[in-house]
């Protein structure tokens, strides 16, 4: 016989008890490993979804402005690129809105891909590339539309424009392009029907149309805006290769030799960004080229002394004046009076002015706020020049469609209002002879001051060699400048971005939410219950073997040796339980995944989550379970030390009554002290000294401690009065008195119920309801509707003229929309930053909020960095802060900030980190439970700085007058109809908020459900304790039977004791919970939390079940045998 043999025999002989312990360990491991498996499965499912939707795409090059398809070949020709990538496919990828003609159904935020054969070959799938007007639909969109082959589909997309929409010459009425297409059918998933570059767990809404057709309709023949690349395994710096393969055309840059011996540098946008202008000036300097900056603008009127000339181009020219020293000297600003203007002799003659005459220019400007403004500027005529040389140069004006290409002034079709009645015959004559030749010249500095835009302050540059060059030399110089300019700009500044989209999306699939951690938290009660059960069963096993321990002690075993023996048994039992638990974990995780796809689908928004069994996760869960079980078992085994060998030999533990006196007064004092503290904290909270949520929750917790201390005192009290009376009540009272027999066990049982009830009910405090949409300080900001457009609204919808332009007249003539207020916000599309998105938002949506919204001070803040009274009164003002190092102040919804972005107020975040233009944000505030959970909010001015390419407004916050809630649907429909060309989707802010709440509430339900299951497991423990109590007290019960107690009386005795403990636990837990959720209860008009009631009923049922088990134990007791001394 060895030590091991002894342990083995013990294991074998007490196998029934050990089976119970194995059950406990297996439960703990199953739940723990199962929870971790859920996390692994969610991550694996999301990764799988990303991989399936990307196809062979590893890297994508996207561009703000379409680039030439030929770039693909040039890129692949770069050293190492062909080896590093096994394929490339140029595509057009746009956002759009699709309308299914037969059903009239409309879908916004549809990905519109222009693809050809190369796309399908790239992905290695066999599908017919769409041709002509044919279009494939993603399976999800086809299902949503109920689309059939040959159905008509109208797709509207944003039209890429060279000229920025939010500039004077941008065509604001032509922001989109509608195309009528013929549905081929759903493109199967395996044929890349769910192709998507953005990680999202929801169904893909996409259409795949013929690339040539899309290019043609967008006026972008030969151009694309995205290039997909598939890695072959080699390593190459794609950005560097891209920079090396770009040409001027890709960047919309043009360097042209002119007949006057100078080089003209222009961009397709009509404006050269300041950084590019500076780079080209530098290039000119290095190549000994004299640079003249030119900014040409249209003056609606040049007026002096009652005479005026309509619609004249005015050129702001730099000091060099393209080598025209006379003009240069005339434009020198002496600083005396109004700035100088030089007129050509035609204009001077027409206006009848001479040098020194005043002149006023009236012109349009497109304000950044999204409206056309007419302004005036006063000048002093400083010179008159003949229409010759630079003054006769038509190329000082960039090509403006609708103006410079018109045959006559009468044919002008600019994107702003003009009054053709002002045009005189002599103006037409001038146009016939000189076309867009400038009539006036002003210094470039003045021109910049008047007409600078965020897209640039120079319309062209002129580079003039220091000595005359031959046409060939000039052409060579032009090519050299062009190449140098392209290199200087590079892909990043040129709006091209290289994204390792596979790495980014797979990284994002780690998830905004760690479901493994969440389910571990949610399963906390379940795991604790299982471990308690393990400890309890093991303890009961040890208590059964007290005599055995006593004998071992009597025969010379040390306490340590006995502990080792039991730990050895515990280890074997735990490992066995863990092995069984690992198997059960797979089943448990499968059940949880099923739950996520069904019961809790509100939390994940997808049914595409499947179980992925990761052996390592199982091992981690099993080892954790074994470790936790061993800790519980070793704590139990330690109790042996406290028993004397004599006690052990009699088979009894320490006399429970010995603890009756001990600590009674301490518990009474604890009870009183915590009760007083709870009252004090409640008072402080009501007096708003302590934050409501923390105060009430703290008070509730104190009530819980106080209640349990009171119970502990009650169980140990001595002055319980004399037993008396007879019948059911007398026996029941006797039963309640018996609860004090093992006060520790009784308190554990009641405490478990109390804590479970407290948590299950108090967690309802975090359950969110959607309140009145009209409250400006509420989650909707007082806005009843929120709209998002696919195409930008260039006019400010908050401005009356902007509304008129958009067809949203909100006046008395239009009663439906009367008194409706709209505040627009700019949008950089991206990943949803709300809890609706399971992926980590690497490229989050950003909203640029206008001054109107900032000044309105709407919404409620959860936290902010406000330091002044004004900032505290309206933390939105923090967005106007100017921070060092280009950091931009931002506001984020508190829930998104904490749970999705995993940051806090005061933290600095970097978004678009994997692009060439990372953006640093400082979180200056967080909104409490707002409808703006999906985006990061920055000031409009900051937005325009960091996203100059994002034109117009795309998000509208719409407020309606009080009492108009009844016509909300009509209003939404009306706004959608009027803004139909922009693909606007209007939804109720309440419904949007409810969708967010549904996610959070589903998490709470999950917690409550798993916590409730933990309680059910706890019930098994409670039943075991009760049964054990009955067993231990069998002689006492037998004596009662001998004294004339019927079985019914004995059952009543046990049930009364059990129910007393459960009821006490419930009362303490619920009272504590009600205190903790008092503010929420008041807010809800006293309505009790629904799901909690179900769980409380479950708790009560648990008590009854435990009592029934005990009753059954009583009925099975061999009472007579129990009476015998042994």
């Amino acid at each position, binding site marked *: 016989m060895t030590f091991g043999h002894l342990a083995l025999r013990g294991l074998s002989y007490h196998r029934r008890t050990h089976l119970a312990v194995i059950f406990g360990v297996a439960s703990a491991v199953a739940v723990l490993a199962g929870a971790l498996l859920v996390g692994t499965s969610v991550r694996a499912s999301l990764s799988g979804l990303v991989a399936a939707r990307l196809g062979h795409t590893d890297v994508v090059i996207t561009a703000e402005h379409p680039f030439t398809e030929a770039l693909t070949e040039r890129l692949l020709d770069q050293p190492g690129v062909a080896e590093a990538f096994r394929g490339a496919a140029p595509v057009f990828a746009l956002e759009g809105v699709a309308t299914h003609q037969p059903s009239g159904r409309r879908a916004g935020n549809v990905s519109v891909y222009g693809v050809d054969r190369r796309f399908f070959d790239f992905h290695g799938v066999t599908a017919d590339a769409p041709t002509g007007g044919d279009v494939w639909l993603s399976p999800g969109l086809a299902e949503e539309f109920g689309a059939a082959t040959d159905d008509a589909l109208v797709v509207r997309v944003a039209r890429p424009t060279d000229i920025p929409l939010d500039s004077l010459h941008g065509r604001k009425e032509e922001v989109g392009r509608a195309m009528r297409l013929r549905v081929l059918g759903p493109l199967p998933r395996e044929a890349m029907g769910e192709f998507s570059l953005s990680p999202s767990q929801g169904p893909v809404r996409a259409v795949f149309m013929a690339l040539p057709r899309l290019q043609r309709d967008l006026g972008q023949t030969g151009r694309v805006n995205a290039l997909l690349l598939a890695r072959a395994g080699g390593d190459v710096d794609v950005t560097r290769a891209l920079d090396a393969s770009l040409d001027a055309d890709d960047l919309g840059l043009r360097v042209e030799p002119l007949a006057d011996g100078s080089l003209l540098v222009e961009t397709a946008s009509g404006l050269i960004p300041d950084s590019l202008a500076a780079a080209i000036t530098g290039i000119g300097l290095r190549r000994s080229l004299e640079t003249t900056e030119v900014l040409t603008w249209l003056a609606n009127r040049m007026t002096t002394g009652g005479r005026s000339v309509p619609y004249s181009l005015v050129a702001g020219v730099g000091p060099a004046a393209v080598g025209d020293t006379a003009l240069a000297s005339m434009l020198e600003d002496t600083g005396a009076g109004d700035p100088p203007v030089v007129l050509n002799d035609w204009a001077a003659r027409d206006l009848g002015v001479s040098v020194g005459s005043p002149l006023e220019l009236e012109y349009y400007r497109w304000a950044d706020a999204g409206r056309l403004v007419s302004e005036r500027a006063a000048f002093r005529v400083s010179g008159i020049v003949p229409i010759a040389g630079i003054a006769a140069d038509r190329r000082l004006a960039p090509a403006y469609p609708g103006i410079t290409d018109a045959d006559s002034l009468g044919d002008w079709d600019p994107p702003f209002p003009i009054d053709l009645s002002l045009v005189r015959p002599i103006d037409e004559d001038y146009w016939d002879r000189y076309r867009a030749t400038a009539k006036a010249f002003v210094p470039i500095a003045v021109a910049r001051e008047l007409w600078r835009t965020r897209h640039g302050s120079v319309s062209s540059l002129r580079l003039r060699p220091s000595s005359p060059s031959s046409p060939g030399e000039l052409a060579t110089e032009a090519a050299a400048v062009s190449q140098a300019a392209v290199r200087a700009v590079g892909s990043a500044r040129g709006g091209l971005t290289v994204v390792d989209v596979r790495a980014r999306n797979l990284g994002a699939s780690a998830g905004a939410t760690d479901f493994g951690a969440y389910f571990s938290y949610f399963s906390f009660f379940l795991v604790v219950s299982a471990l308690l059960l393990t400890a309890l069963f093991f303890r009961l096993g040890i208590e059964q073997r007290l005599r055995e321990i006593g004998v071992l002690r009597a025969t010379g075993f040390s306490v340590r040796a006995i502990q080792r023996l039991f730990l050895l048994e515990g280890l074997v039992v735990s490992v066995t339980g863990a092995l069984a638990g690992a198997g059960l974990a797979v089943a448990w995780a499968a059940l949880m995944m099923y739950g996520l796809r069904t019961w809790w689908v509100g939390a994940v928004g997808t049914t595409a989550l499947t179980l992925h069994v990761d052996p390592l996760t199982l091992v981690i869960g099993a080892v954790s379970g074994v470790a936790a079980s061993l800790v519980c078992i070793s704590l139990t085994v330690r109790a042996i030390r406290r028993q004397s060998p004599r006690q052990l030999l009699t088979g009894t533990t320490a006399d429970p009554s010995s603890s009756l006196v001990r600590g009674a007064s301490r518990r009474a004092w604890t009870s009183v002290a915590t009760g007083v503290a709870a009252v004090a904290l409640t008072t402080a909270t009501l007096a708003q000294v302590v934050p409501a949520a923390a105060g009430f929750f703290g008070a509730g917790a104190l009530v819980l401690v106080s209640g349990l201390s009171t119970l502990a005192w009650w169980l140990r009290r001595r002055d319980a009065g004399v037993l*008396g009376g*007879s019948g059911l009540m007398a026996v029941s009272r*006797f039963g309640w008195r018996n609860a004090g*027999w093992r006060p520790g066990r009784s308190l554990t049982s009641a405490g478990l119920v109390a804590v479970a009830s407290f948590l299950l009910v108090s967690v309802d405090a975090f359950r969110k309801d959607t309140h009145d949409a009209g409250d400006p300080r509420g989650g909707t900001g007082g806005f009843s509707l929120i709209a998002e457009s696919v195409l930008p609204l260039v006019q400010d919808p908050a401005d009356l003229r902007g509304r008129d332009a958009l067809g949203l007249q909100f006046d008395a003539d239009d009663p439906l929309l009367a008194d409706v207020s709209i505040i627009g916000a700019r949008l950089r599309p991206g990943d949803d930053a709300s809890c609706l998105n399971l992926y980590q938002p690497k490229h989050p949506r950003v909203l640029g909020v206008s001054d109107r919204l900032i000044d309105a001070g709407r919404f409620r803040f959860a936290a902010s960095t406000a330091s002044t009274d004004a900032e505290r009164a309206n933390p939105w003002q923090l967005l106007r802060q100017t921070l060092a190092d280009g950091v931009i102040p931002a506001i984020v919804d508190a829930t998104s900030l904490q749970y999705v972005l995993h940051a806090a107020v005061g933290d600095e975040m970097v978004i678009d980190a994997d692009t060439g233009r990372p953006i640093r944000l400082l979180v200056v505030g967080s909104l409490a439970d707002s409808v703006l959970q999906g985006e990061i909010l920055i000031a409009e001015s900051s937005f325009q700085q960091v996203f100059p390419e994002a034109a117009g407004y795309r998000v509208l916050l719409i407020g309606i007058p009080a009492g108009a809630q009844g016509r909300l649907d009509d209003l939404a429909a009306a706004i959608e109809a009027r803004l139909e060309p922009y693909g606007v989707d209007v939804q109720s802010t309440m419904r949007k908020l409810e969708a967010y709440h549904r996610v959070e509430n589903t998490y709470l339900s999950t917690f409550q459900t798993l916590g409730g299951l933990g309680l059910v497991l706890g019930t098994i423990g409670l039943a075991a304790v009760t049964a054990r109590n009955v067993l231990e007290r069998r002689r006492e019960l037998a004596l009662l039977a001998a004294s*004339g107690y*019927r079985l019914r009386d004995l059952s009543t005795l046990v049930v009364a004791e059990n129910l007393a403990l459960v009821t006490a636990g419930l009362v303490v837990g619920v009272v504590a919970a009600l205190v903790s959720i008092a503010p929420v209860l008041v807010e809800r008009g006293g309505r009790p939390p629904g799901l909690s009631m179900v769980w409380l009923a479950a708790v009560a049922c648990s008590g009854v079940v435990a009592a029934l088990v005990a009753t059954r134990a009583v009925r099975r007791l061999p009472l007579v045998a129990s009476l015998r*001394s042994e």
Partner: protein
Amino acid sequence: MLVAAQLSKHYDTARGPVPIVDDLSLEVARGESVAIMGPSGCGKSTLLYMLGALERPSSGTVTLDGRNPYALDDAAQSAFRNTHVGFVFQDHLLLPQLSALDNVLVPTLVTASPRPGAAADRARMLLDQMGLASRLDHRPGELSGGERQRVAVARALIQQPSLLLCDEPTGNLDRASADAIAGLLVSLQGTHDTMLVIVTHSPTLAARFSRRYALTDRRLVSA
């Protein structure tokens, strides 16, 4: 009058029935006290439990004052035991969570009391008679072995039973305590006019009772 006629008891085991008592008869009149002796395991306790309506005999009858408790249903049998029989065991079997007074009152909880407080008054009186007037509120853990057994005796007498059955009542006590308990039982039996049956393997204790039997070969033999 307690009448046990032709009592037999055997236990069924896997190896066949094991006889404990065979064709045993006994009569005890009011005021009589009987001691039954025998070695451990001879069936003394089984006989006592059969007499006290706790263990149904395999055959034979038991009547107490003309009533056969085994002819009653469970509820009536329990009520019969409650009001007609008092037990004292070797192990006092007091409830540790209750005071001495409460322990004595336990049997009264399942029968209707003639008036509120009557049971408590009687319990105090009994404990007073036992010399425990100053120990009413003490719990078993705070009493000596002899005191505990005296509380057990008081509990057995609280319902004024006609039959007092004692199973080795002094088995766990030292000599002095055992003597005191024995004296108490004899004295109380006289005072309360009960029939007293005591089983013991102590000849000294048995000697204090009017009739003595030995349980030998499953039958009673006068000793």
